[in-house]
């Protein structure tokens, strides 16, 4: 068995102006760097270790593969109420609420994305149709039920279709980033950059006292100018079809499954970046923008004027809201 106790590292910069923790979680590398703290003691390290512990807890709750995770228990073939952690309940409620504004974002896509994740072969029409019949946000409810121990009410998830599967992939790391930032703020941290597998939250100002300069990666093979945006105290999340894809029969499929078709999205957007005050919102919007394609871009801007959108199209065209 591998030694998983060695999955993080804490280091200071020269001059001890910043402290970085790199750690493995959510099946991806993550890092948190805090600036301007009390680096003479271990207080900042305790904060960072607390952040890591929080992330590990969330992973345990939301992993698809851990049999006892909230998500695995919800996705079991049952219509019985499944007691869940309050954070899971809130995540699902947020996704359900977002779905009402953006129907393209459907957290019950799990039934359809499940059959594509294997990618040994392209699923046939019948399999896709069958999987799609279980996709509907109306089939999942978050309720309060009596604690088995009689200790009061606890959140639980109820499905009306035992084969409906939830997929928190388009929101989990965003929600986790928001919780991490809240934890850092509680500890008095004012400036930090949080990177959960690419989901960024740039807290406060850059330590030099200016806004953060954020660049958006241009996918390989795309001819486009570098994009640099100045931001303060916001999250930036990019969803793209260039990092995760699988080739089957010589054809490339991206990882986000369109709930309208049950097939991987064929959007003309290859990179969708959203900058928002909430990482959860940025995460869900980035996923939705990627699926919506350039034809849905203007509508999303109109519905979410508080956010900044940057879309890179296959032909190198860049759409920017600001």
């Amino acid at each position: 068995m591998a030694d998983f106790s060695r999955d993080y590292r804490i280091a200071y910069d020269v001059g001890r102006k910043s402290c970085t923790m790199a750690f493995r979680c959510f099946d991806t590398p993550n890092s948190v760097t805090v600036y301007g703290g009390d680096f003479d003691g271990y207080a900042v390290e305790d904060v960072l270790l607390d952040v890591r512990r929080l992330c590990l807890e969330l992973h345990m709750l939301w992993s698809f593969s851990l049999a006892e995770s909230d998500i695995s228990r919800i996705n079991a073939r049952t219509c019985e109420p499944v007691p869940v952690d309050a954070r899971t309940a809130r995540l699902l409620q947020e996704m359900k609420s977002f779905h009402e504004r953006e129907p393209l974002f459907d957290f019950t896509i799990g039934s359809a994305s499940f059959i594509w994740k294997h990618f040994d072969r392209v699923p046939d029409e019948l399999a896709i149709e069958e999987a799609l019949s279980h996709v509907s946000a109306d089939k999942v409810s978050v309720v309060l039920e009596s604690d088995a121990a009689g200790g009061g009410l606890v959140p639980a998830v109820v499905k009306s279709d035992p084969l409906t599967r939830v997929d928190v992939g388009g929101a989990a790391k965003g929600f986790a980033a928001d919780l991490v930032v809240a934890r850092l703020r509680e500890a008095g941290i004012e400036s930090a950059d949080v990177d959960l597998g690419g989901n960024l939250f740039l807290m406060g100002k850059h330590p030099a006292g200016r806004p953060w300069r954020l660049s958006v990666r241009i996918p390989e093979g795309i001819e486009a100018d570098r994009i640099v945006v100045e931001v303060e105290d916001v999250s930036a999340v990019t969803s793209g079809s260039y990092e995760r894809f699988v080739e089957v029969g010589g054809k490339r499929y991206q990882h986000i499954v369109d709930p309208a078709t049950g097939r991987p999205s064929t959007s003309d957007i290859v990179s969708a970046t959203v900058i928002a005050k909430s990482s959860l919102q940025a995460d869900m919007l980035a996923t939705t923008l990627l699926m919506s394609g350039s034809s849905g871009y203007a509508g999303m801007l109109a519905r979410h004027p508080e956010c900044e959108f940057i879309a890179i199209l296959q032909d190198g065209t860049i759409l920017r809201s600001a």
Partner: protein
Amino acid sequence: MVRDSELGGESREEPVYDKVTQASMNGIYVKAQELDRGHNTVSAPSAAPPGAGADASTHAPSSDGSAYALGEDASTHASTHASDSDASTHASDR
């Protein structure tokens, strides 16, 4: 390029950007065979060891016995994010 002539003529490069946002694994997908299902609890890390905290030091990992299973030798993870030697050079294309 910003030249600090008042400070002895040393030049210091201003970063064009501090961080890069890019697409990531948009989900928490862990292959079943990579998991150790027998260990799925998280315990509190121990306190930092004496002597930890020196500049650019690499701390000994926690001895919390964390059973968080990732399916890879976690010792290969530790070097993925070295701390920057200077905050102004934080920019990096990942």
